[in-house]
């Protein structure tokens, strides 16, 4: 503790009225904390880089002159029919069909990001709406919705995905829907739990006493208090969804070939990793970098939003 000299104190008091005191809400404070977190900056940079690469994929393909699905059996494969390693023509080497691995990894980022973000958005909206309704209405509504969430969480999702894909055939939309369907319940359960505790706050009663209806209490009073955990959960759900997509593609249940996906490329590389190290390495590294960045960013967001820590509540 330092003792302020009288002169300094007077100067501070004189300066105070001229500087308008800006109200700093909880969001502003969290943002300030996030900006000062090196892990957050680094992982955000990696994500921005990968997003930029995904956006620039067609431009890169144009620049190197190789489309994502163009096969080069003459220059892209050895005389024995094996992938060729990194060279000036193919910067990251080729795959088993003589396609440019660099272009395919960049195009794969598009699928990963699209599926990750779209599935997370769907799952988050569904989880928040169902969790809010279950927590707010309680009684029979809660019983039904909570049991439904338990059922979804206990579903063997791979078997379900295999069954669904064998009926519909693999596609991007089915992949997104399957991932969202198996992810929303985890968010729904946490939202329900938080809603149950926020519901008991006096300001909810105050809202009822001024005449608010159920929708207003749920979305104006309760939802803002849930945003922090929901943002954290959603950020952490993106990498899970990306890995989920890679898993499905790896098993041939995701997006149909020849569309480039990281999971599909890893699957194709299984037979060649002993002779072509670059084939599994680059899609694998891309997957690792993206999921790690999202996970670290999620952790940083959680710390920024609540330094006291709800680690006990949300993982």
């Amino acid at each position: 503790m330092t003792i302020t000299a009288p002169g300094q104190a007077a100067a501070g008091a004189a300066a105070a009225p001229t500087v308008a005191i800006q109200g700093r809400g909880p969001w502003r404070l969290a943002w300030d904390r996030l900006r000062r977190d090196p892990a957050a900056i680094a992982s955000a940079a990696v994500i921005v880089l990968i997003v930029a690469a995904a956006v620039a994929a067609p431009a890169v393909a144009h620049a190197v002159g190789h489309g994502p699905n163009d096969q080069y059996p003459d220059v892209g494969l050895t005389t024995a029919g094996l992938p060729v390693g990194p060279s000036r023509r193919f910067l990251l080497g080729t795959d088993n069909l003589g396609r440019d691995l660099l272009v395919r990894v960049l195009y794969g980022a598009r699928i990963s990001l699209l599926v990750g973000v779209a599935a997370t958005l769907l799952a988050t909206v569904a989880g928040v709406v169902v969790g809010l309704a279950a927590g707010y209405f309680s009684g029979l509504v809660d019983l039904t919705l909570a049991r439904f969430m338990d059922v979804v969480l206990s579903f063997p999702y791979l078997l379900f995905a295999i069954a669904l894909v064998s009926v519909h055939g693999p596609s991007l939309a089915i992949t997104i829907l399957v991932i969202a369907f198996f992810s929303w319940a985890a968010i729904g359960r946490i939202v329900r739990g938080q809603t149950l505790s926020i519901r008991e706050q006096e300001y909810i009663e105050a809202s009822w006493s001024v005449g608010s209806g159920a929708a207003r209490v749920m979305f104006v009073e309760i939802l803002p208090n849930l945003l922090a955990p929901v943002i954290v959960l959603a950020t952490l759900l993106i990498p899970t969804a990306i890995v989920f997509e890679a898993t499905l593609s790896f098993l041939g249940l995701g997006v149909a070939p020849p569309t480039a996906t990281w999971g599909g490329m890893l699957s194709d590389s299984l037979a060649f990793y002993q002779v072509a190290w670059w084939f599994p390495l680059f899609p694998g590294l891309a997957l690792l970098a993206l999921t790690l960045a999202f996970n670290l960013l999620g952790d940083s967001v959680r710390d920024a939003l609540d330094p006291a820590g709800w680690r006990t509540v949300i993982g």
Partner: protein
Amino acid sequence: MGASQDGDALLRLRDVVKHFPVGQRRVGATADVVHAVDGVSLEVRRGETLGLVGETGCGKSTLARCATRLLALTSGRVVFDGHDITALSRRQLRPFRREFQMVFQDPYGSLNPHRRVGSIIGDPLTVHGLADGSAGRRRRVQEAMELVGLNPEHYNRYPAEFSGGQRQRIGVARALVLRPKLLVCDEPVSALDVSIRAQIINLLADLQRELDLTYLFISHDLSVVRQVCDRVAVMYLGKLAEVAPVADLYRRPRHPYVAALLSAVPVPDPDLSDRRQRIILAGEVPTPVHPPAGCRFHPRCPKARRRCVDQAPELVPRGGDEARHVTACHFPVEPGDDLALPHPPIDQPGQDAGDDLAPVAGGGR
């Protein structure tokens, strides 16, 4: 406030009962219920401040929530300004909510930490569609802020940026922005420091004069009640023990429980405090799940007799009291009674020959 006629009641509660089920319901067994409020009739007259006093858990907050229909009644009636609002749905209640508002106890818990103060205070305007545009809403909110002594410039701040006393002013502003007739204050000052408490009490008194308000003022602090209320109703275990004008009640309490409560009010003068007789009651407040038969206070009452076990006393004027001073006691306190006596052994038959006609009904659990 002067004596008002019966027809001048702004809020009238008739035999209000609120039971809460507790615990697991087993097949074939009736669930236990908490008898939070068990038959309370009370009226709040236009322009007065009615104090509702009692210990923690006596049901005063539950009664307030029944009166404002935040809770559905188990039985009984609530009549506000001549309209029976007992059975109205939330939607049907909405127009009435403009007329009665609540101020809550906890200045921290009663304001949503994620919303700006202006939007919290403006909530009633938005809900009732009285916003007349965002500029009009802002003007009315800032008027309300000024009314309760807040700086209207702080419209965009969050509750966390205010002190406890200022937050309670925010709560009052929210309640007043619709200019209601009745304000139900549920322990509005008990969470505040003593110095802040006086500010809020004075604010409430000023607002009552300016805006012609009627207050139902709930508190467990008898000195605060004495300061702000015109009439006082004392609750014990879900029932009213005594209702009287404030001066009468403090000068001459008739219910032994009220006498004991008043004897426990701290007196700032140490000499006076030493000389005063402090009534220490026997035992604890019984559980409201199995309230005692007859008079609820009989297991702890130094004046209890057989009749107190057998028959619940009615809330009527006792022994020459005015019509406005009603007491639920068979044997009201008379001057010179020694209430420091131990609880008499009324549960043994034959002890009190005159009243001992019926077998003991069992006092409580």
